[in-house]
């Protein structure tokens, strides 16, 4: 599998993860080897159809986390809202 530094940077952007230059060099090698490894997987015909797993419960209201408790966990909160840094200047 050819994994260019450009493709790795694209993956970093998609995954919203910043790597250090050392991590980039290391992971470029690791990812190539991991993708070669998984690429050894043969293509098989579909097998049996996917079983239906699980079931959905009725959409009934039930008590949820009180607002204060949820906000208490936030890195930053203000006036009953989560506060984040500005998206645009």
């Amino acid at each position, binding site marked *: 599998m050819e994994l260019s530094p450009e*493709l*790795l940077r694209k*993956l*970093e952007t*998609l*995954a*919203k*993860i*910043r*790597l*250090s230059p050392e*991590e980039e060099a*290391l*992971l470029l090698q*690791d*990812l190539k*080897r*991991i*993708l070669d*490894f*998984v*690429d*050894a*997987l*043969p*293509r*098989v*015909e*579909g*097998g*049996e*159809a*996917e079983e239906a*797993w*699980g*079931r*959905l*419960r009725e959409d009934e209201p039930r008590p949820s*986390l009180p607002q204060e*408790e*949820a906000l*208490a*966990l*936030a*890195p*930053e909160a203000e006036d009953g809202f*989560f506060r*984040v*840094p*500005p*998206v645009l*200047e």
Partner: protein
Amino acid sequence: MLAHELRARLARKELSPKEVAEAYLKRVQALDPGLGAFLTLNERVLEEAERVDPGLPLAGLPVAVKDNIVTKGLRTTAGSRLLETFIPPYEATAIARLRALGALVLGKTNLDEFGMGSSTEHSAFFPTKNPFDPGRVPGGSSGGSAAAVAADLVPLALGSDTGGSVRQPAAFCGVYGLKPTYGRVSRYGLIAYASSLDQIGPLARSVRDLALLMDAMAGFDPLDATSLDLPPRFQEALAEPLSPLRLGVVREALSGNSPGVERALGEALEVFRTLGFGIKEVSWPTLPLALNAYYILAPAEASANLARYDGTLYGYRAEGEELWPVVEATRGRFGLEVKRRILVGTFVLSSGYYEAYYARAQAFRRRLRAEAKALFQEVDALLLPTTPHPAFPLGGRPDPLAMYREDLYTVGASLAGLPALSFPAGFEGHLPVGLQLVAPWGQDERLLRVALAFEEATDRAFLRTPLGEAF
């Protein structure tokens, strides 16, 4: 003393819940500095022991909980810097059920970050040591739970298993570990890694102890959409007589094993033959490539599940002036293995590669599951090593692919959603060896019955207490 024996003494009031909790806490304080099994101790445990209703079925039994299972009011880190100070405002269903029956949470155990690893060396905090040899790993990712049980710092523990994370550490630490059928134990409150595979499972020093935990925590939960409505009947099943079954030895797991593993397997087969079991070699052709499929599917699910750690709602947030750079720097605090898997997962799900990787792995998974189903027409359970070798030295798997191969024999049952149990079955030198039983879907109780037959026939010969016992 085993947990079910301890429970009997508690019930007869020969021991009080507080005495029990104190004894285990004392052992943790004396021994855990050298082991590193616990990340957090429950500072309220003595208070809870005093208040527990003595009439409850698990009254006063201490349980250690892997730190990716949320405990209300008790720090839960998932072994990650991103959750280093996270105090959950809610309780996992498994924990709520155990507590409702009187069990006491002693503390939270170390793990590879978010369950990603096979040695507990990928914990963001410190590695855990193997109680049988401090120079070796306890396995992972539930290494803290396995080490704590093996060292009798606690009689019972919960782990979680995605590709082998209960079974492999159980084998490395000489204890029992069960990965239930997918859906038997609620995943509500289990911090998600790969949701189609993740399953909470018990670790203990006897089969009966596993049954205690399963009866307490398994069963339908409306809060988990993949929960199964299969009421647990483990202790009841263990009381029934077991007629000899047909065991299938998996051919694909017979070569490349260390001498101690080979010997343990051979001796176990003799024990089962003596018990009247039929033994037959069977083939599970897709098993050797299950790992390749796993390392497409699990990272794909991880990349989606771990998207939530963006520093906005809870957990760690990096400093900064603008949103996206802050998010990227926050996620830069993941450990290297977590980053590796998120990036692999992002790749296999990305436009242009999805069909070639993710869809191919899904088709393979269906084939593997169909093969397993067909095998159970011929035999009642499968027997194979849990791992190809006993515990390896700390730092002994610097190559990520070598670490991934630790799960070679365990990922098959994971991908097929089948119940699988690792039981102590021998030693290689001073290191424990574990063997694995796999049963048909939903037949978890059968696994315990077979393992109990082995445990009784061998008179617990493979259960050792390298650091002594609390009682």
